[in-house]
């Protein structure tokens, strides 16, 4: 099976984020990491390849720094990478991002495209589904298991509150992968070495611009959330804080 994995670079989980001057995006001078659900999507693609053969290709959009995500994926075992490189890709809405990805793979024939179920930055949970619409392929979201069957795949999709559903669908298809579908691997030293010689194709914004339209939605501004509750912050040494908390548990929460 030939599988494309869409991956995104996002700010590290505990990175302190600051707003830019216009309050429309974050300041970019932070540490980045791979979007966690995308790491599970890559792991699943590598496992499918190990079982059934084929090829795993990884793709990302974003400035030069985003290449790190592709290098890590290659080190873990992906065969080659595609980088839609440029700052122009950062401000695209989900529909345009999906259009850009579709345009950059028009000469490829994938059996499956995986994305993480959502990104830790925007959190729209749309790019994979929109990619399926653009390509005219079937899709399924929040996938927890993939088995190859005759002419297609048998899937386990997560529903809410502990429920699941089995689905079957023909290939090619787009699947959005849930975190926890598998156990992630680490890159090996040999893998890291080999990654340096694996092919990485760069695509510029100018090359795929014809496929894009105007953004259909716009982030007007970002701001620190307004507090929903008044939080009383407790300070002091561990012992002092423990005493204060027990006092709250007794007299205000009333569970002691």
């Amino acid at each position, binding site marked *: 099976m030939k599988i494309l994995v869409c991956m995104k670079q996002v700010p590290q*989980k*505990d990175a*302190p*984020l600051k*707003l830019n001057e216009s309050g429309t995006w*974050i300041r970019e001078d932070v540490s980045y990491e791979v979007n*966690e659900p995308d790491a599970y999507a890559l792991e699943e693609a590598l496992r499918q390849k190990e079982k059934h053969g084929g090829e795993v290709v990884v793709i990302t959009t974003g400035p030069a720094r985003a290449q790190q995500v592709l290098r890590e994926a290659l080190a873990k075992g992906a065969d080659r990478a595609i980088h839609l490189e440029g700052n122009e890709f950062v401000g695209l*809405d*989900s*529909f345009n991002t999906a259009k850009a990805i579709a345009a950059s793979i028009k000469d490829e024939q994938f059996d499956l495209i995986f994305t993480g179920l959502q990104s*830790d*930055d925007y*959190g*729209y*949970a*749309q790019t994979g*589904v*929109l990619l399926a*619409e653009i390509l005219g392929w*079937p*899709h*399924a979201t*929040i996938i927890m298991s993939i088995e190859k069957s005759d002419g297609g795949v048998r899937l386990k999709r*997560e*529903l*809410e*509150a*502990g*429920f699941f*559903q*089995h689905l*079957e*669908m*023909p290939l090619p298809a787009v699947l959005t992968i849930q*975190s*926890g579908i598998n156990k992630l691997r680490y890159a090996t030293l040999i893998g890291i070495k080999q990654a340096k010689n694996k092919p990485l194709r760069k695509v510029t914004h100018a090359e795929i611009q014809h496929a894009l339209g*105007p953004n*259909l*939605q*716009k982030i*007007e501004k*970002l*701001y620190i*959330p*307004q*507090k929903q*509750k008044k*939080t*009383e*912050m407790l300070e002091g040494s*561990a012992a002092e*804080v*423990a005493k204060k*908390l*027990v006092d*709250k*548990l007794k007299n*205000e*929460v009333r569970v*002691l």
Partner: protein
Amino acid sequence: MADTILIVVEQREGKLNRVSLETLTAAQAIAAETNWDLEAAVAGGSVDAIVQEIAKVKVKKIYAIESPKLERYTAEAYVSALKQFIGSKQPKLVLMPHTYQVRDFAPRLAAALGRTLISDAIGYRKDGTKLVFTRQMFQGKFTADVSFSCDPPHFATFQAGSYRGDRVEMGASAAPVEKIAAQADGSAVRVKPLEIFKEAKQAVDLTQAEIIVSVGRGIKEQKNIELAKALADALGGEIAASRPICDSGWLPMDRQIGSSGQTVAPKLYLALGISGAIQHIVGMKGSRSIIAINKDAEAPIFEIADFGVVGNLFDIVPALTEEVRKAKT
């Protein structure tokens, strides 16, 4: 057609998903501010029962969109039927609850009509003639105002818990119902839905617990879970976790709180090393008291906590366990 807000009510296997009522509450508020009409649509095989239930709510009209192809949910049949319907009705705004089912088809539905979806909104604001939707970004660290830059119909979904379903305004009399024979193109459906099931018996019913001590990524290692367990034992509460902890197998899946796990509202929810990602918050924000201990002062969990401690949980938790034990003797 007059300017209209259309709510697509969610039913699964013939049952109303009550999150739909929250979206109706939001839609009634938007309708009141904009003077737009409010209508609802229910799609499915046979939706009489749900239509009767929704007809009690104050809406102008209900559309029952029926087809055997919609009996069991597939994204393709839903997109096909709703695309036809919405394309012909041209509402200003289409609202849905941000459920797993909606996130499966709604982006595709909007795109099929050449439009866009603002997903997972938590509120809205009228800015002149423009509607702006607020949503969380960067795992709740920021709120964003997002607007549409295309023609209507505009699509938006509301996060569960953003509005109160029990505040929905009922109508003076039942709303009129119009049946629509859906044009769902069955031949286009390639996905075959099979059985819906629960994986394992739910061993623990956390919804009944009065005290929950919950751990997140900040616990760092599996062996550190014992610290939290000791505190839970001292308090006489249950141990629970955010999703990453259960994904790692450090606690069983039935201990997971959040959109994919259990939704709880105990007397006390003690969040240890939980940053407060949206998916977790929706499962516990109804708790009567929330105490958060986290090393990151910016963690979104502090937005909803009653009491907060910024510090090292590995020092504070053992000290707290000790104090609780003392207080109990």
